[in-house]
């Protein structure tokens, strides 16, 4: 059960201009993703020496950053909300 070795160690990951679309969004992600853990203040981004993970998804005009801090184990969502709305208090 041996696979042919299709891959090579030097495969480019991310920023693949031949397959990549929306590079501006990638740039915004890098700019806006939370940089520090809200619980322990450790850096989150690998590029800044952190040990966290931040995945961004969109919901409507909001941008949600799903965060995990490898330093303290905290995880949670941080939302960049385009609009904050409330509703009437329940009677």
């Amino acid at each position, binding site marked *: 059960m041996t*696979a*042919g070795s299709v891959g090579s*160690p030097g495969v480019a990951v991310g920023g693949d201009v031949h397959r990549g679309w929306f590079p501006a*969004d990638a740039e915004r992600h890098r700019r806006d993703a939370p940089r520090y853990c809200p619980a322990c203040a450790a850096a989150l981004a690998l590029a800044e020496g952190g040990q966290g993970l931040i995945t961004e998804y*969109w919901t409507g005009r909001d941008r949600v950053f799903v965060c995990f801090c490898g330093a303290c184990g905290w995880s949670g969502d941080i939302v960049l909300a385009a609009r904050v709305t409330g509703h009437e208090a329940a009677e």
Partner: protein
Amino acid sequence: MLTAEQNDELTQVAAGTPMGELLRRYWYPVAFTRELEEFPVRPARLLGEDFAVFKTPRGRYGILPEACPHRRASLAYGVVEADGLRCPYHGWLFDADGSCLDQPAEREETNFRSRVSARAGVVQEMGGLVWAYIGPAPAPRLPRFDVFVMDGVRDIGWTDLPCNFVQIMENAVDPHHTEWLHGRFFEFMARHQGFDAPPSFGKKHIKVGFDVFEWGIIKRRVVEGASEEDDDWKIGHPLVFPYNMRVGGANIEQMQIRVPVDRTTTRFMLYTVHAPVGVEYPPQPSVPDYQIPVYDSSGRHRVDYVEGQDMMAWVTQGPITDRTVEHLGRSDIGVTMLRRMFKEQMSRVSRGEDPLGVYRDYRSQIDLPCEKNKFDSGATFAIDFIDRASSRFSPQADALKKLHIKAHENRKAHENGKADEKGKAHENGKADEKGKAHENGKAAAG
């Protein structure tokens, strides 16, 4: 969306990387049992490393790095002996623990062989597969998941895909793709290529949910016409961390296995057990394996069956999909959950802890939650599954359909028999009551 560094970390398999170290805490299938019965040594590639896997005449399995510690010739061409594996080049002999037992051209008194050992892994056989663990000692238990040890008629479809395994695993926490890739797209291709698409896959998702559990993530869904009382929500089915997905329904139980062979090659395996109630299973001296097609004769992806459609999606995402330019939505929360789980488990390993799904207490069978009534489609699912999924390429596809039909007929006959008995008992009961009433009446009259 991730940064390039995060995508790089998530998709590594090499030793010394956080992800590679995490992945080395688990057991993987590296050969079919029958392969080592046919010839006792063969090459195996796992997590970017090359190995020789072998079985001695005494029945002991072993796995050693393919390159001989002497001068790097391939041990996958080795000579299998009672005590282990001998290099074909100069005859150095290694046992299954990696100890060097013999160096024929060296003088015994130099004791050179005690200074040279191979970094051996641990190997076990289970369910027609040979499993290897190549991580740090002590090896955890090989998980005896239900499909690998349960009764039934089994077979294994497989192929090698030119992409990283994480994008395949992300598909396992993406319920919505089912109604499109296996629903609308299937119908579209069926219309143009002239075949029938099964209606059960196209049902609209009303709701999806994910729960972390002991072995990974349970995926749940409510499809149109069903409710939270149905199996798809109440039970769901699990992503078995880090590289399996358990699926099933209508007496077909399956583990979808995605072995990270190297960073951009994944061995995709469909380990299937057909276990219909109401029929005796024929004996299987060995588990049949068969290669499933990925491409057609013109080099296009073959998309006329369920897994062919999945493979098209996974492979066309690229060898390592570029997550710096993806756009996840709310429907992708399962994907974000899985990535967080990978990262969390990398952290556990870096702290010296066992990650999720590594266990050390023996259990004879680990039952995984898995829905029985799939997509609220009842018994037709079994035949759809064989006709329109990878099982159609199994050498025993026709026999399997007959098995399911026979079991269905037997169950029906049994149910009808019970109904008849009930009916008769009811009639008899009524007759008895009448008789008794009559007797009582007579007695009363008397």
